[in-house]
């Protein structure tokens, strides 16, 4: 399968296979206004299979969300048809307005106007985010 190269934009590579649609949701992009291509289950030497997201133009992406949902991905900036910058997402210490707490007992379910905010938990397993209010573990 072939997808046309992009001339100017961003390629998010090494997205875990099958997770591209989820990543797209967290990036905060409006798919109806953005020229993009999703490649799912592409062969990968490192992971066996991977997803790739190609976005044309200069999109405003929530890269902090990428650090939460796909920290192993790579972000490639393309200019003039060439990759000019390549970096890995950084796990942010806090996430606000990206995910919602799923704990039905959390105060965010009743209190108006509270931001949904999470923090990186350094006490247990790597990459676990917990709700600032109730400490519930965040789920992708």
């Amino acid at each position: 399968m072939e997808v046309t190269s992009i001339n100017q934009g961003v390629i998010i590579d090494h997205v875990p296979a099958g997770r591209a649609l989820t990543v797209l949701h967290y990036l905060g992009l409006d798919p109806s206004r953005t020229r993009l291509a999703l490649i799912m289950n592409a062969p990968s030497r490192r992971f066996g299979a991977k997803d790739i997201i190609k976005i044309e133009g200069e999109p405003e992406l929530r890269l902090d969300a990428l650090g939460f949902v796909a920290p192993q991905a790579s972000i490639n900036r393309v200019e003039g048809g060439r990759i000019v910058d390549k970096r890995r997402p950084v796990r942010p210490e806090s996430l606000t307005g990206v995910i919602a707490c799923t704990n039905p007992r959390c105060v965010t379910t009743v209190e108006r106007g509270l931001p949904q905010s999470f923090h990186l938990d350094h006490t247990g397993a790597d990459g676990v985010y917990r709700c600032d209010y109730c400490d519930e573990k965040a789920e992708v």
Partner: protein
Amino acid sequence: MSEQQQGPIYGRHDSPSFSSSSSNTSLSGHRQDIRGSSLVTLDELDTWWIRELIHRAAYIDAHRARVAGTCKGKVLATLFYEPSTRTRLSFETAMLRLGGQVVGFAGSQLSSVSKGESIADTLCVVSSYADIIAIRHPKEGAALVAARSADVPVINAGDGGHLHPTQTLADLATLQARLGRIDHLTIGLCGDLTFGRTVHSLIETLTRFGNVRFVLVSPPELTCPRYVLDRIDASRTCSFQETGDLEAVIGDLDALYMTRVQKERFFNEDDYLRLRDSYILTEDKLRLAKRDMAVLHPLPRVNEIAVEVDRDPRAAYFQQVKEGMLMRMALEAALLGDELPGYEPGEEVAA
């Protein structure tokens, strides 16, 4: 968790938080300055201050008349959105015994909450009336919202199944009074270890003092959550053992912390009925225990400790209630910045 890995700064008021640098000087010339701060979780209170509050509570107990005017002219507001007679009375009695006064409500049907007022708005209003606020709320994280909204110190008096820091302070003071230490312990925790917030908080706090062996006794359905066990694992000097057999391990324990299987934490009543009688402490079981083991319970109990155990000198749960009030006195005075007359920091007080 290290002392540095602490949460966000709480409280809207322009006062130092518990997360402030350990180089700060306090009203007593030591470490953190907690005057004007809120207490949402014990994680923000350094171990020096926890020991200091235990010392102050012992001092208060030994000098009740002398400290009776410590908070004269101050007003405590108790905002109890769910019933908890004992905790509310403890907070209120603590302030009255320090010479202050008390306002508040118990039950959300009596407050503006029934008209749809948010926690943040209620706290903004009440901070105009009171010098310090104690809040209990069924929703987890409500105390943090309260602390961020208020202009005066807020004490978390329990936010759902999440945190109840002053209960943990009461537990620590009882261990100190009974055993003379809060480290180098083998402590059993028995019953509902899944939803038991007092258990989680006690474990997490004791791991900060170190050299504690936790014996976790529960049915398989009510074991301790992984994130709490991770805290023990992260400590270099603490360890844990999980078991379902209380009688097999009771002889090893310096203290046994019993808990109630709480009906209000279950969505399914069938599960509650099946698990509520898992462990009942009786005199027969106590015969297998050390002669100086302390039996603690956050109360109220239902049937998990037989009434006959009340007469056993190892029963410490009613002393725990008294220690809770004394710790709340020490805490309220410290957060208000009111010095205890005649008290010297770190002073050892004979029990």
